[in-house]
């Protein structure tokens, strides 16, 4: 797992409360964290709230943060995952009952847009039916394009365990997607 050489220095400066260093960490990770959170929750505003909470917690916990050689992002994703869990607990959020709103899409061919949107909506719906661990591994690996080692660091698992988890998660997602598509076809 490669950690940028200057990340350690940056973290040390942030650890002392240097705004410039904290600002730099924020700039580096804000969009990736937001993307991860946005895939785990249904609305933009909720994703923004949780992302805010993630970085505020980061600032509060920084004085106690010990650099262990793991990427800083792993720590941030863990905070994000905890924030989402807390949010679900607090709001008794039931992901199985609410259909997610449409994610802002990249530019797609207008001819394919309807089919693409439908596919994406079903994919997100199926994704949110999965247990949190399965969601985490699939989003971090295939949406956020993180390596096995990075995801293993975030989820505090060995790479072997992560690969097994990823395999199961993909199978579950495939099953969930088939179910949704079948139900959609029947209607």
């Amino acid at each position, binding site marked *: 797992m490669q950690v940028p050489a200057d990340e350690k220095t940056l973290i040390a400066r942030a650890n002392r409360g240097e705004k410039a260093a904290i600002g730099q960490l924020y700039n580096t990770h804000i969009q990736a964290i937001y993307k991860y959170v*946005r895939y785990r929750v249904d609305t*933009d505003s909720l994703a923004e709230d949780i992302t805010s909470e993630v970085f505020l917690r980061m600032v509060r916990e920084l004085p106690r943060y010990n650099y262990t050689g793991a990427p800083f992002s792993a720590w941030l994703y863990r905070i994000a995952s905890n924030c989402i869990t807390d949010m679900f607990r607090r709001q008794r959020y039931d992901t199985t009952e609410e259909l997610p709103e449409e994610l802002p899409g*990249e530019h797609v061919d207008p001819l394919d847009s309807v089919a693409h949107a439908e596919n994406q909506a079903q*994919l997100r719906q199926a994704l949110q039916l999965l247990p949190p661990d399965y969601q985490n591994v699939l989003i971090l690996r*295939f949406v956020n394009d993180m390596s096995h080692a990075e995801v293993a660091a975030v989820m505090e698992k060995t790479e072997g365990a992560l690969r097994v988890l990823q395999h199961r998660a*993909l199978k579950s997602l495939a099953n969930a997607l088939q179910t949704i598509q079948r139900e959609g076809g029947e209607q």
Partner: protein
Amino acid sequence: MTESEFTSNEQQIIEQLHHSPAPTMNQEAVERLRQQLFDEVDQVWGNPGDQLIEMTVQHSSHIRWLVIVLAVILLLAGIVLVMLISRPGATPVIQATATVTAMQTSASPTNSPLLVQASPTAAASTTPPATPSETPVASLIVIEGPVSQITDDYIIIFDQLIETDRLTDVTTQLTPGVLVRVEGEAHLDEHRIVISAVQITVIQSSDLRSGQPGAPPPSDSGRSSRSSRDS
């Protein structure tokens, strides 16, 4: 396990996930959060300006407490001082001591029958009266030595005038040279200390002074004026 080991269905899902839309936080929200973050940094670490103000406030608070403590100490000291000054037991005290030591040596080659070493010392210390109207109280003084002169109302020992008008019955028995112990009250008469004898005790009769080293020690009967009076 590599991605090539996935089934085609799984591979299709992975592709779909890879090409899923990448939501981004809008710039306004990013800037708003950045400001929130920096405010939080100030709260967690405190900014230097705040620290300076806090330090100044703390110091002024310490100084205020110091002033209060000093004021309380001064107040207590004042109260104690007033209590001491106004204490009713503060009466004038006159302490006067006089020591006369008489020593008889054994027979010496010079055949000096009696060597009297007398070192009359008198020390008087007075504590200033709390109020000027109070009269000084005489204290008891003791003087021992040979009687050098005798008059009707006085005897003189080591040039010290001693009033004996209250003890005329004893003084009639005294003769010059008799070693006596006088207990009396000292008081100032103009610039001179005068002792009014209260009790006179004959310590040694005059025959010792006349050069008889083998003379018997004074009997108990002759020791006190009271005994003399009784006899």
